[in-house]
């Protein structure tokens, strides 16, 4: 092993992430190489200093008690999800599962727009991240019969996967993403040079017509159909985005 190879593996080595073979190779190299051995020492020193207790922020006294109290009351602490009492009445006698459903319903009726804003922001952030991290697709295929089954076992629902290649919106594939605190399906399309991310997941909300948001130069289109939320985002022009959204919404 030469130093260039060793430098590539040295973080994995210091972090005990290499398999047995490469671990032995690294150990051997470090014995013979003062420079790589020095790097290794610095990494260990950094781990000792940064991982030391003095940089760890400890929770303030009483936080644990406040937390327990809050959890027992089932009270939400942020300002966005406020209306706890109405579902309390209806959901009191029900099981935990029903309580969760109750929260969802209240969430839907009460804080509609600010919640949508938050999700809209998450959607744009996810879109940007997917473009930056070159992690656009986990399953790369323009065949919806390949993309749709890929989600089986990875999600607790089966997303609608449509193909509009004949109308200029080409399916590139799909991947898992995380939005609104749950795993969601992200379907990736493109039209000319523009990438469209379509996020979808089940919801308790009623049907909702297409609405739009603009964020940081991206256009976000959202609708709900048959208890599935759809969020499409792209830098494609709004007219064509609306086209896409309408076609998608009409898909059964």
């Amino acid at each position: 092993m030469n130093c260039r190879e060793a430098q590539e593996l040295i973080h994995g080595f210091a972090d005990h992430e290499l398999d047995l073979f490469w671990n032995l190779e690294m150990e051997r190299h470090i014995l013979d190489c003062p420079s790589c051995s020095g790097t290794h020492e610095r990494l260990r020193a950094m781990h000792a200093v940064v991982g030391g207790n003095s940089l760890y922020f400890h929770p303030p006294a009483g936080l644990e008690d406040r937390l327990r109290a809050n959890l027992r009351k089932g009270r939400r602490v942020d300002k966005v999800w406020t209306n706890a009492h109405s579902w309390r009445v209806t959901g009191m006698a029900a099981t935990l599962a029903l309580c969760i459903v109750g929260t969802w319903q209240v969430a839907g009726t009460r804080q509609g727009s600010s919640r949508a804003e938050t999700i809209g922001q998450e959607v744009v952030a996810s879109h940007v991240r997917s473009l930056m991290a070159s992690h656009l697709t986990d399953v790369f295929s323009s065949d919806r019969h390949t993309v749709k089954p890929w989600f089986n076992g990875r999600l607790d629902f089966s997303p609608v996967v449509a193909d509009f290649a004949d109308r200029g919106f080409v399916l590139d594939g799909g991947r898992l993403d995380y939005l609104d605190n749950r795993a969601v399906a992200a379907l990736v399309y493109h039209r000319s040079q523009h990438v469209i991310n379509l996020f979808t997941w089940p919801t308790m909300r009623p049907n909702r017509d297409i609405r739009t948001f603009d964020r940081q130069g991206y256009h976000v289109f959202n609708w709900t159909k048959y208890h599935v939320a759809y969020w499409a985002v792209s830098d494609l022009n709004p007219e064509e985005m609306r086209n896409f959204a309408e076609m998608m919404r009409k898909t059964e």
Partner: protein
Amino acid sequence: MLRTTELVRFEKIVLPHLGAAFNLARWITGNDHDAEDVVQESYVRALKFFGGFRGENSRPWLLSIVRNTCLTWLQQNRFSGSTELDVEIDGREEESENPESILLAAAQSQMVRKAIEELPPEFREVIILREMEDLSYKEIANIASIPVGTVMSRLSRARSRLQELLSGARTSGVGA
């Protein structure tokens, strides 16, 4: 009653990770007050999703919720000017034996703390998760929603950057 049993189980499994949750939230938000809000919200969310938690390791699971709650928090606060870094020092954690080493350790940890605070958020995050929480690359990949390969390269860049900041050789470029 199912709800109470579930809550007791939740408290037993998830509450012990309060320290890790607070530490991560505190490093991301930059102050105690917001960190506490984020942690409270994270636990409420975690309880809500606890029914779906099948995993064996609850700490990375909780941390992924904390991290997500932090992101939402950052998005809501980024433009309202609350990103100031308050570099307050509390000496209460120092545990060394003699006065001299206490001083040395305090000065050193203060310097390191400041350097970590100066890291870009995506670097700071992997440093906290790896060096402080000792999480595996796979666990970090799950929490930060990045491929495992990216964890190693990001850690490597984060560490060089931290090294740079610590040795005072701070240049304007981030380095390759």
